[in-house]
């Protein structure tokens, strides 16, 4: 294990990407993710990589599209309003079967919103990361260490399935420092990219990377093929953490920053004799339906905790096929819920019986 150092989440994301072999980063500053781009601007020139501050978020994401087309590992990062601008490029990449990593360090919305931590882009990330029939892989770290671990994983899975992957973080995780051990990383892709539109000196037939298909039948066939891949991903790639769920009657479902707060509340509820547990989705798409459904067997009720008005709650209800009540507690606009608030809601759920 490498030495543990203190690092900001944003910087750790950048360093982890570099160690995963990302040498092409295109960004545009926005609070609260700016340290990520700043780190890239310092390090990339020293290691023969590309750091480019584009003229806009749209330009940056299209530069990622270009770099990914050539078969290299490329990344961009932003925060909520900037991600909205990038959705066009994300859709084009999905439609071109291109692997790349997009980082969203979420802040309060809608509109310019605020700059404090939020999880209000869940719907955007998991349901409509761009126009058209598409998904992107969505990973939701809840610690700086997990941010590091998931960046390499996101690059690997993006390459494996030829699709964009998103790290859905938030301002709290981006700004905070925690001890982190950053391993050597994969240093690059193990996946062959015979489709890449790169230089070959006439050695093969040229490749075309494209998302335009004017024949409806061709497009339908392509989209259906893509959805077969998505089905494999839903089967194989869901990740979650279960905490004290074995005998839990009241199960909190929370991801990212709010999962940390929820864990403190679950721990306190246990000490007060309430059988509480936590399921923390690590992948938001694919959603860890099975883990949640399995936990429902012994559970009486669920509580979804989010830093939004309740965007994940429907996925929880679907996962358990509405077999148990699913309540919601959230704060939004940039407010981080407190463990005490979550505990109060667990108690409400547990009613009189302990």
């Amino acid at each position, binding site marked *: 294990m490498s030495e543990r150092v*203190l690092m900001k989440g944003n910087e750790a994301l950048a360093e982890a990407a570099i160690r995963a072999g990302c040498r092409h980063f295109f960004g545009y500053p926005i*609070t609260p993710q700016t340290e990520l781009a700043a780190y890239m601007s310092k390090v990339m020139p020293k290691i023969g990589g590309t750091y480019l501050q584009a003229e806009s978020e749209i330009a940056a994401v299209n530069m990622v599209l270009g770099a990914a087309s050539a078969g290299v590992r490329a990344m961009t990062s932003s925060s909520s309003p900037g991600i909205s601008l990038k959705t066009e490029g994300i859709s084009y990449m999905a439609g071109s079967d291109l692997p790349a990593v997009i980082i969203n360090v979420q802040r309060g919305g809608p509109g310019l919103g605020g700059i*404090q931590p939020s999880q209000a882009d869940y719907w955007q990330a998991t349901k409509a990361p761009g126009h058209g029939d598409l998904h992107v892989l969505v990973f939701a770290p809840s610690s700086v260490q997990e941010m590091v671990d998931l960046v390499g994983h996101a690059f690997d899975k993006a390459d494996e399935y030829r699709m964009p992957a998103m790290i859905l973080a938030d301002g709290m995780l981006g700004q905070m*420092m925690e001890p982190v051990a950053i391993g050597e990383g994969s240093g690059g892709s193990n996946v062959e990219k015979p489709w890449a539109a790169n230089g070959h000196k006439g050695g093969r037939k040229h490749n075309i990377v494209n998302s335009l298909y004017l024949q409806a039948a061709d497009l339908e066939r392509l989209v259906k093929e893509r959805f077969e891949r998505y089905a494999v991903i839903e089967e194989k790639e869901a990740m979650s953490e279960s905490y004290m769920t074995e005998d839990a009657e009241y199960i909190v479902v929370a991801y990212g920053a709010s999962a*940390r*707060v929820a864990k403190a509340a679950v721990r306190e509820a246990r000490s007060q004799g309430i059988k509480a547990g936590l399921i923390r989705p690590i992948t938001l798409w694919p959603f860890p339906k099975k883990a949640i459904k399995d936990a429902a067997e012994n559970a009486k009720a669920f509580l979804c905790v989010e830093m939004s008005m309740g965007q994940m709650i429907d996925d929880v209800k679907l996962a358990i096929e509405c077999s148990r009540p699913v309540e919601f507690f959230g704060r939004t606009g940039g407010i981080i819920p*407190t463990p005490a608030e979550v505990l109060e809601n667990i108690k409400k759920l547990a009613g009189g019986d302990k």
Partner: protein
Amino acid sequence: MNDMNAVLAGFGGQGILFMGKVISYAGLIDGKEVSWLPSYGPEMRGGTANCSVCISADPICSPLVITPNVFVAMNGPSFDKFIDAVVPGGIVIIDSTLVDREVTRNDITVCKVPATELAEKNGLKGLANIILIGKLMEQTGFCTMETMQKTIEKIVPAKKQHLVPKNVEAIEIGMNYAG
């Protein structure tokens, strides 16, 4: 002290966030779990800066400290903002050169250290924050002098290692100040 949940607050430029980093690194060097969360955005740009620091033997759940058991205040507005949030039995350390407030609570330990004045007198301008860490060590024993020495060597950049003795001196002044 088992778990330390600290809020450090003052003006931007006083080294509030750096103070938090030093404390966090000391925890890390001692093999504990730590977290550091700064205020960012308009709050900081408007002049006041604060950060939450947690040190624990166990993984840290929420890094945002709402009810601190340690509070260090380096200006009046910060003192006003957080003093009522301190848990009973908590420790409050005040730079009394800059904070002229009277403490009305009697369920907390209050240490008034004229850190800014002590720094100037001893030729340690800008190290008032480090003096306050010294006082915090004396009050809580959150780390040893040996750990702090290592911490300072680690956190002071390689090109500025000549500043290490001054920082150590500042820690000692804070530790030994009886006020």
